[in-house]
């Protein structure tokens, strides 16, 4: 366990070096946040009936989404791992005295954590102090806040478990672009990053509810604003746990299987 922990710590420190890049990221995220809010504002203005989620809840949803982008984006990837696999340097990884799944999992987790730490707080703090229609609100009560944190963390763990499959698939395809693109595009859509899940038509919502993607982004954000009530949130957290255990278990089997057929050429 301590080996994984030190990988996590090292990576975290490494990621924290890129502060200028993070600042640029913050600026970009603000722009996107404002843009989405304005678009939805325009939609809401002449809406013939009450939308499934109030504008205030939606604005909070959008700011959370922008600040925790590193927690929810599937295409956020570690090119180092891809080159390891395609260049054959994977041989070194195999020599290490710890299990490769856990090792990479820790690496990916740290990459996302460091990027989010630098970006999320500036965005969140500013978002709270924005002028009225755009500002973010606190969760309605403490319990909701705690549930949100729990859901967000589990969502992050779940997302890393999903993204592991992209790396595993590279063992077979040898090119990361195709699989990242397909899993990324579909995952993003069903995680509610293009439009929030409540806006989808019913048939699409039921598909989204069956897939794990929404549990990584849409679910924690709606728990925060209280759009998902507390008892439902607890259920959702249980579902998250089940998915997490299942995906990690399957992922380890898949990775070990892929590793067994690895052929490393000398040179």
């Amino acid at each position, binding site marked *: 366990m301590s080996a994984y922990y030190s990988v996590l710590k090292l990576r975290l420190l490494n990621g924290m070096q890129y502060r200028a890049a993070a600042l640029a990221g913050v600026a970009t995220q603000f*722009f996107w946040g404002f843009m989405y809010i304005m678009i939805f504002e325009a939609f809401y203005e002449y809406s013939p009936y009450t939308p499934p989620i109030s504008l205030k809840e939606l604005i909070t949803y959008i700011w959370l989404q922008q600040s925790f982008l590193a927690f929810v984006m599937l295409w956020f990837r570690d090119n180092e791992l891809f080159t390891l696999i395609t260049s054959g340097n994977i041989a070194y990884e195999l020599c290490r005295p710890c299990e490769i799944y856990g090792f990479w999992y820790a690496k990916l987790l740290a990459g996302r954590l460091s990027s989010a730490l630098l970006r999320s707080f500036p965005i969140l703090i500013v978002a709270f102090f924005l002028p009225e229609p755009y500002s973010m609100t606190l969760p309605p009560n403490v319990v909701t806040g705690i549930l949100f944190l729990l859901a967000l963390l589990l969502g992050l763990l779940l997302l890393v478990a999903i993204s592991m499959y992209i790396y595993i698939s590279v063992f077979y395809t040898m090119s990361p672009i195709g699989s990242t693109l397909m899993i990324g*595009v579909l995952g993003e859509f069903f995680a509610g990053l293009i439009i929030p899940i409540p806006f989808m038509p019913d048939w699409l919502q039921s598909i989204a509810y069956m897939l794990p993607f929404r549990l990584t982004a849409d679910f924690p954000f709606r728990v925060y604003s209280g759009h998902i009530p507390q008892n439902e949130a607890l259920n959702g957290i249980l579902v998250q746990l089940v998915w997490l255990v299942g995906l990690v278990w399957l992922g380890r089997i898949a990775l070990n299987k892929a590793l067994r057929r690895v052929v490393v050429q000398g040179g």
Partner: protein
Amino acid sequence: MKLYFKYLLILFKSQMQYRTSFWLLSFGQFFIPFTVFAGLYFLFERFGQIKGWDFFEVALCFAVIHMAFATSECFARGYDAFSGLVVNGEFDRVLVRPRSTVVQVLGSKFEFTRFGRILQSVMVLCWALMNLSIEWSVVKAITLCLMIISGVLIFTGIYIVAATMCFWTIQGIEVINIFTDGGREIAQYPLNIYQKWITKFFTYVIPFGTVNYLPLMYILGRTEGNDILHMLTPLIGSLFILPCLLVWHFGVRHYRSTGS
């Protein structure tokens, strides 16, 4: 110009060497804006309209800007990936050749896989046009073409300015995405749905408004006042590329090799 087509031909042949990868990528490129468009469709299914614009009008807006974006990404990819040329000092080689730097950098890369994206926007465009009742005339058709061409020029202009920045910063800068990707997202809706300052910024500073909002009003017959003026706005917008080229030449003169 002849040189540029030769560049294109060579790049096309080299990309076609990896045929499967080429088709897969084009296919994937088709799906990226597809989910965005699906999102747009579902939003309209819920709300019906946005500030008085209905779905097909916005779809037309969407198609024009996405087509312009995809085309410019196709052609101006060399500028998008320009920081690479500067970092490893390859730009020195470009400078010693007796041809224009603009043509050489443009010809250094060409992303044929973006055809997937272009195809998607063409389909949206056709779908929108079939469902809109527009009284067509030759002038309107010309305006539509001008909108797309001028959009390509504006995106290319932004890429050029972004590349010019690399002369000083060496690394590419992420903030520029606000104007390329962000501009595309902003301009896929008619600009009058936003706050005034955004509309103004994207009309007078970076003239996306001139390639879809203003001429679109003319095509849809919503204009009040001067038709000709609305029709000609794409031409005015395409002037945007001139100062960009000037900045580029200024940058080239101040270029200092990294020496690697």
